[in-house]
């Protein structure tokens, strides 16, 4: 039963990930006095891309064709480590935070590599910017993870979620709010949202993620887009499940699971609303201002760790 539920979680990640993108688009549209897309539009876009043919440059090698599969697989494998509405995840017995970060790093390695494959300028540009920013995001993310792991006494994601769900609310919020701030900033960097990168831009010189996938079309592009949405969804679900884990089902009774799932959905869409709100109210930062933002994230994580050490558990 555990196994079926763990697999069901991964399937749900696949299904729900585009809907979070839709929600953010809808919020932004409504704030600009437009109607915005319906929820079916995001799925229809993916479906359309899957059915279209691909045009591949002569300069490209097998890496160009292999990359979307590796990227999508890495997103799926990272998804198998995160518990959504049930207390255990599929690969949780053999992996922890570090494996989660490195699965995403595997996908990013091949993404940036394939951007250089066609020999275009924009691929190189997107690739170098993406690697520079994500290298700076990594210590902030890892340190906030470690601050949480220090509190929970374990590195496994399931273990951290379980530990926090058993503690009373106030002590958690007090010690870990800094880590939350740090991880929220990293979420903006990793999902390419407005303070860092504009997902709806048409100007190549302002692109980071879009510039890397400029050459892709058809099925490959669908996989890449979907993988990006899954990554964004995973970061949001980590934020939600670690920092407000109450309501997570630990038994396999239908009622508990249903309640947990609905609660989880509301938390995810609530957090996505916050992301959308930040996107509406801020402007995109200059590229060389983003390291300052990431330095703030790192300092938040250090303060979280320091606070726990000085005040005690």
């Amino acid at each position: 039963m555990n196994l079926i539920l763990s697999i069901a979680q991964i399937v749900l990640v696949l299904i729900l990930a585009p809907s979070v993108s839709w929600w953010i688009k809808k919020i932004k549209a409504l704030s600009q006095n437009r109607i915005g897309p319906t929820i079916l539009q995001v799925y229809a876009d993916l479906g359309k891309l899957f059915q279209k043919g691909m045009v591949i440059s002569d300069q490209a090698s097998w890496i160009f064709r292999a990359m979307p599969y590796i990227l999508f697989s890495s997103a799926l494998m990272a998804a198998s480590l995160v518990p959504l509405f049930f207390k255990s995840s599929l690969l949780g017995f053999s992996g922890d935070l570090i494996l989660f970060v490195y699965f995403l790093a595997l996908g990013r390695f091949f993404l940036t590599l394939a951007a250089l494959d066609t020999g275009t300028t924009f691929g190189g540009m997107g690739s170098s910017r993406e690697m520079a920013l994500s290298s700076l995001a990594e210590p902030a993310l890892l340190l906030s993870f470690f601050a949480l792991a220090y509190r929970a006494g374990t590195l496994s994601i399931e273990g951290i979620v379980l530990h926090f769900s058993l503690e009373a609310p106030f002590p958690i919020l007090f010690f870990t709010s800094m880590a939350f701030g740090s991880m929220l900033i990293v979420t903006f960097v990793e999902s390419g949202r407005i303070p860092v990168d504009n997902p709806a831009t048409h100007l190549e010189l302002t692109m980071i993620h879009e510039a890397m996938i400029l050459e892709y079309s058809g099925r490959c592009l669908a996989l890449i887009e979907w993988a990006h949405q899954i990554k964004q969804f995973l970061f949001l679900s980590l934020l939600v499940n670690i920092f407000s884990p109450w309501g997570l089902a630990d038994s396999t009774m239908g009622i508990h699971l249903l309640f947990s799932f609905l609660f989880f959905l509301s938390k995810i869409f609530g957090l996505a609303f916050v992301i959308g709100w930040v996107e509406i109210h801020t402007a995109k930062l200059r590229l060389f201002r983003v390291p300052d933002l990431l330095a703030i994230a790192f300092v938040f994580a250090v303060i979280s760790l320091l606070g726990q050490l000085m005040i005690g558990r």
Partner: protein
Amino acid sequence: MELLFIFQLLLYVFGGFLSLFVSAEKKNLNSWTHLVAALAAGCGLASSIMVLFRNAHLSFCFPSGITLFGPLELAMDPLSAFFVFVISFLSLAASIFAVGYSREYQEKKNVSLLGFLYHFFILSMVLVVTAKNIFYFLIFWELMSITSYFLVVYEHEKPAARKAGLIYFVMTHIGTAFITAAFILLYVHSGSFHFDSFGANASPLNFAWKNAIFLCALIGFGTKAGIIPLHIWLPEAHPQAPSHVSALMSGVMIKTAIYGLLRFLFNFLGTPFPWWGGLILVFAALSTILGVLYALMEHDLKRLLAFHSIENIGIILLGIGMAVFFNATNQPIFASFALIAALYHTMNHAAFKGLLFLGAGAVISKAHTGNMEELGGLIKKMPWTAVCFLIGAVAISALPPLNGFVSEWLTFVSLLMGFKNGSAGIRLLTPVLAALLGFASALVATCFVKVFGITFLGTARSEHARQSSEVDFSMKLGMGMLAACCIIFALSAPVITFLLGKVTQALFGSEALPLHFVRTTFLMDPAALSQLNPMWVFVVVAVTIVCVWADTGFVWQRKRSDRAELGLRF
């Protein structure tokens, strides 16, 4: 076992003199003498694996004419056997590679000299890690330095090579001076030249002596290992040597310095002080971060790889620093785990750095330049080299499922084990160091995306790159062997951890140590922080990628007729 070891030494000597006497004019003949080194490396591999599995101790004593310092004694305890294993597997691959690679030097230089120096270089490294007497250790250390100096200045017509040789020569002798000072202090205290008379068997050292010996050993071995700020010779010397020699220098020669440091820290000096661990951690963090930051700015393939060696030595020292710290606070199980992480990374680094240097050598031999700005598009011309180089790049960036990830995971966990014990300072420092390790590894990934992308992908940037072609069979075999090693070291992680547990058991003396770290196929840490199953990770990665490829391939396939009509490439 004993026979294999002696046979190995004799084969190296035989191979060296054979290379010298086989005429360099005979076309291609001299290249085959490298196979003697390959055979010797095979013997070394077999004997060291047998020692590790059976947990035995070999010992040979040769009476020498110089009775002042004692007889020439060579011994293989598990730690020495491990280092002989690392030397042997890399020498095997590099020797096979050298058969094809030395043909490039056929017309221009004296290939017999190259073979002679090469054989004696490997021989000296094997003797350094098995010597048990101060005098002979220093002789073999010096032999190693001199043969590698001549190999660095092998292309002496280039002024850059001469300058690099000079810097290397001076720095390595400064290191040797400090090592000699440390050894002399030990001799004066214990009165004997034999390694076994130090450490637990001798009377305890007093405070000032212990610190002085430690500092001398750290500076001396640190110069050879390439710790920042003693690293300046590494980026000069490693690029100038022939590529298979660079692979050996970067993969094993700097590890003999780690061997020496481990002998001092855990064998000769008794119980360490906690501040030693802190000092080593500081230098390790500095080496890790600055090594990769300087590597990012380089455009010469081999110079860049040399800077990465500095960074990986930093990672090894992070493990060693934590081991020293745990040993000082009397926690042998934790210290054992940290040391296992360091030793595992030593082995993995030899595998993937050797692979990358051999790949760089293959590229340079065909494209006649090591400058990335003049390469490009080589993946179409040299597909096998590209795949091997990609495996090396993925391994060094510590990405799952390859071996770099396993040893970096072990290093992360051994750093974070500081959570459970230690003063508040350590509890704050180690997560920050772990975050910096993650930062460094992300930068390594950046660097290797750049290296692989600019060198192999895109279009050629110069005529040489356009004209290049795939390398010959022996070079492909050498690279392929190391690529296979990267995968095998990841898959057999439980076995390797178990064997390394036995090695650390010999150093720390606890009972039933390896069982704490490996449970069936899971790697577990003693502080119960986490667990990892590298085989599962490998299986999951492979299965997922295959499933995704098959699924999207079959489900969303356009009909063949449509594709042909549109004339598009899919």
